Structure formats: structure tokens, C-alpha cells
């Protein structure tokens, strides 16, 4: 292991390291901690120009309460879920199929199609903006969650295919051959053999796509408007407009908006990290 494992180092460095860790974390997360503190300060602290002192009293309940009761935030969060979850399902399903096709079969255009997906994944999405917007408008899907979901599924397919294909590639090909010798059809192979084996990849990818989509702002702005379809990332800007300079409210709102992916990360940490590395590194 590099650097030298701690237990092999001098006693002073061990203690130094152990005490450095929390300091480093606090410094690293300082901006975030500040926001967290803002979010539990009462508004009177701010009007008094007193931004940095300890909250004069704990106002977390009323601040967060207002976020949920007095603002469209719950609606936006709901939208985010209604956009994110179908996208995750759709993108993962599509890429299981494309990944299977590209990972298992040898055909002339295999690499070409695969590279097409990868290239698409890296395209600056601004170049898609105008046509996709027109497309969505013409399909009558402008300002609908469905419009956003369909686009996200399509765009994520590039990345997901890369991920799934590499994962399937790493499965022992003998499994497929064994099945073929046993007279199992290609669809059965996909359904009964490959799919169950892809569970870890599916889990990792789902978590990953979840955060990607949840955090999307650009397309939310381009393809939706207003609380009936917009996700929370875009919603937070109107939330800002509503609460103007009420920093305690804005902080609470930001924290609420950031919470689901953070929770997701903590609950699914292993999958998440597996996803990041698996997807990228083969």
C-alpha cells in the first residue's frame, strides 16, 4: 500500500494524522457547513447583519418547515423523482440491451456502433440544445416530464452502454457458449444468464445515473418551465426569487435540494464508487 501504512510510521505522525483528518474534512466542507448553519439560523440573525455568529436559537424546524409548507419545493422534489426514476429505469434497461448486443456478439459494425455511443456521450450537449428543444416542442412534449425523461434516457444511453458493454465484456464468455451448447436461445441467455449476472452493474449504474439526472440543470432549463414539470435544480432558482435575500430559507432550500443524491450516495456508497470506476476504467 502506498503511502506507507500508518501503523508503520512514527507515533507522532500517527497522532498528527489522526488529528489532521477531522480538520481537513472540516476545511474541505467549510462552504457546505456554512450553508448548513445558515439554514438553522432564524431570520432575525440576518436582518441584524449577524451572519457568522452561532445561531441565536435553533430555527431549523421553522425554516425547513417553511420550505415544505410555503414553497413549491415539495412539488419540485416530486418532479425530480418523477423525472429521475423513469430515466434511470429506461436508461439502464436500454443499455442492458445495447451492452448485451455489443458485448456478446461479434459483427462487423460492432466497434463502430460502440464508438458512436461513446462519442455521443462526450458530445458537448449544447450542440444538441436547439434541435432537441425543437424536437420536444414539435412532439408536444415541451414542459412535460416525459419530454425530459425521453431525452435523458437517450443521452444517458451513450454512457450507460459504455459501462454495460465493458461489464458484459468482462463476464466469462464460456457462460454464453455453455448455454448455447445447451440449446438455450439468445433471448433466454440474455434474460436468464446475462441479466442476473449484471445485477451489480445495474445497481452501480442506477445510482450513478440517479445522481446525474437529479443534478441536471441545463436540460431542465431548456426543456421545462414552471413547477408542474421542472425538477428541483431548476426549481431552486425560482425558490430563490421567492425568498429573495432570506439566506436562511435559501440555505434550507439548497440543503433540501441536495439531500436526495447525498442520501443515495450514503446508502449505496459501495455501488456508487464501483460505478464510477467500473464505468470509466474498464
Amino acid at each position, binding site marked *: 500500500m502506498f503511502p506507507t501504512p500508518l501503523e508503520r510510521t512514527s507515533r507522532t505522525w500517527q497522532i498528527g494524522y489522526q488529528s489532521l483528518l477531522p480538520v481537513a474534512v472540516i476545511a474541505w466542507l467549510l462552504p457546505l457547513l456554512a450553508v448548513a448553519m445558515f439554514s438553522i439560523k432564524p431570520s432575525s440573525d440576518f436582518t441584524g447583519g449577524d451572519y457568522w455568529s452561532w445561531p441565536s436559537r435553533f430555527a431549523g424546524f421553522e425554516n425547513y418547515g417553511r420550505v415544505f409548507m410555503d414553497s413549491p419545493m415539495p412539488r419540485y422534489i416530486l418532479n425530480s423523482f418523477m423525472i429521475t426514476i423513469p430515466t434511470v429505469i429506461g436508461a439502464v434497461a436500454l443499455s442492458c440491451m445495447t451492452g448485451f448486443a455489443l458485448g456478446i456478439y461479434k459483427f462487423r459494425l460492432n466497434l463502430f456502433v460502440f464508438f458512436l455511443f461513446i462519442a455521443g456521450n462526450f458530445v458537448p450537449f449544447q450542440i444538441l440544445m436547439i434541435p432537441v428543444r425543437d424536437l420536444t416542442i414539435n412532439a408536444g412534449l415541451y414542459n412535460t416530464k416525459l419530454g425530459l425523461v425521453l431525452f435523458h434516457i437517450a443521452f444517458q444511453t451513450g454512457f450507460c452502454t459504455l459501462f454495460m458493454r465493458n461489464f458484459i465484456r468482462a463476464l466469462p464468455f464460456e457462460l454464453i*457458449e455453455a448455454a448455447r*451448447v445447451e*440449446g438455450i436461445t439468445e433471448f433466454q441467455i440474455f434474460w436468464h444468464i446475462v441479466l442476473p449476472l449484471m445485477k451489480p452493474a445495474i445497481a452501480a449504474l442506477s445510482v450513478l445515473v440517479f445522481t446525474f439526472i437529479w443534478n441536471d440543470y441545463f436540460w431542465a432549463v431548456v426543456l421545462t418551465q414552471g413547477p408542474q414539470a421542472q425538477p428541483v435544480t431548476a426549481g431552486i432558482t425560482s425558490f430563490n426569487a421567492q425568498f429573495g435575500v432570506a439566506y436562511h430559507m435559501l440555505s434550507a432550500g439548497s440543503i433540501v435540494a441536495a439531500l436526495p443524491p447525498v442520501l443515495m450516495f450514503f446508502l449505496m456508497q459501495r455501488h456508487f464508487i464501483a460505478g464510477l470506476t467500473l464505468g470509466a476504467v474498464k
Partner: protein
Amino acid sequence: MTGVTLNNVTKKYGDIQVIHGIDLEIEDGEFCVFVGPSGCGKSTLLRMVAGLEETTKGQINIGKRDVTRMDPAERGVSMVFQTYALYPHMTVKENMGFGLKMNGHPKAEIEAKVAEASRILKLDDYLKRKPAALSGGQRQRVSIGRAIVRGPEVFLFDEPLSNLDAELRVEMRVEIARLHKEIGATMIYVTHDQVEAMTLADKIVVLRAGRIEQVGAPLDLYRDPDNKFVAGFIGSPSMNFLTGIVDKGAVRIDALERTIDVDIALPADGTTVSVGIRPEQCTLTRQGRLTVDLSEALGGVSYTHIVVPSGEKIIVEERGIDRMREGDAVTLGFDAGDVMLFDAASGTRLR
């Protein structure tokens, strides 16, 4: 049950030809082993029989059926892979029954067949486990069980034991031999392990660079190889080769300053031939012009390495109590009747 016939079978990957028109007849119920150096095409040939690789040219028959263009599933073969290829998400039982289930066999029938296979392979205790919870040997047994369950006409094995450690390998080898005896199906077995080939085969097919060098029963190949390649390949340690020159109806071995008489038709005088003699048929006596380079004592047997003046290396198997040590001066002896002669250029056996 049926044998397998290959008829001028050829395989090309793009422009590269890896199997060059192989003709081979494997009898019903025979245990046939393909051996040969790495990359010689053993696996490719086996996979062509299985239908996992397309046959470029030629014809493969299983029994009387021409299966050349058939799907693997229709050929009536089962295959056992080196890596076991067990479905990791299924239990042992499900693994064995999966093929039947997918092909719509009734449940009771599957149960019965799995039970039978599991009995043969003593897997009853493990039926509920997943492959991950099994040792390498057990996994390989399951994978054989999966092959048995389908009741194929032909079993195909591709180096099934090479992922096992030495001890288990011996055990499983014995088990496969027993299995063959019990179910009597035709089996084709790829390996590069000498011992497996010698002990399991009814018939060994020695391949080199996509061509058959020789086909025969194990001891026939050992005792009567057709060419230098087979002679050197079969037997461990390998046969020693020395350069000899035909001289007045006898063969002169300059390295040993010895001329041996042989009772076969020799080529013209002055022709160079290769003289082969097995390590176990050599003897060493003290004193002489040769020096022991290295002696490896394994207990019951020692392998003594000698480099002759012409640069060729000779290994002698010694078993007696008095064994040579490094640096000893020795004389190499052997019975002229044990010697095999090969054409120096083509390697063909002279007989």
C-alpha cells in the same frame, strides 16, 4: 450412441488458416484425447465439433448426421470448459437442470436426471449451494454433471483440469476415467498434460500447427512414434536426441564415439539422422569422457543432465543407489535396440 467423424475439416480466421484439413475417426464410446503444444489448434478443433466455431471447409459427422452447419444445441454434444462456466447465480441443481428447463422438459424428468447425475458425481450434498461456495474440484464436477444431464452422444472437454491444483487434478482425472467407464459415451478431451493424456485416452491425437502428427493408443505412441515430434512430445522427461551419421549400414554417433547397428533400412551413407533414446533407457557408468552437468535427485529417481561435446543435452533417469553427482566423469550407455532413428530434416521415423 455414436462416433464422430471429421472429414477434411479446415478452419480459417480471416486469411490465417489454423486447422489444415483434418481427417479423423472417433469410434462410438471411445475416449479420444487431443494433445499438442499451445496454439496448435486443439481448442479450435474441439469447438468446431461443438459448433461454437464455424467450420470453414470440410464436414463433421456425429453418428450419421452431418452436423457441420448445425447449431451447437442440435448436435447432441455437451461441453465441459476449463473455467467450469457454471452460472454463478444458480444453485448446483439449477445449473444442472437449466438446459433441460429452457428446452421445456417436464419438471419430473429434470429432477430425475439431475438426481442421477448428482449420484454419479457424488454431488448430493451440494445441490443447494451456489458455485461460489464450492471448491474447484467440486465445481468441475458440477460442470461435468451439467454435461451428463443432457444425455449427449458426445462429451467434449477443453482442459477441464488445468485450473485445479496438482492433488485435485489427480483425483478428478481418476474420476473422469471412471465416468467414462460408467456411461460409456464418446468423449473428446483436450489437454496439454502428458499424464492425463496417457492415462485417460483410448486414442491420442497429437496435433501440431493445425495438422495431425499421429493418432494412436497411448503406449503405441510412446513405444512407436511416427516422427521425432511425437517421440519428443510423448514421454517425460522427453526423449533425448543425438545427431548420428549413417556409416556403412550402421549409425555413427560422434558425440558418444559409438556406432550402433540397427536392423532397419538405412538411408545412404553419410546421411545425417537423429538418434532418439529415452532417459529411462539410458544408463550411466562411472569413468568416461562425459561430465555430469547437474543432477536432480527426487528421491526414488534422479535426473542427471549431461551435455555431450556436440552441445546436445541428454537427460538420464537414474534409480539405483549409486547415482552420479555433478562433475562426475561418466559414460553413457544404452541398448542399441531401444534406439529410434528419425530423418534429420523431416523428422520422420526411419523403420
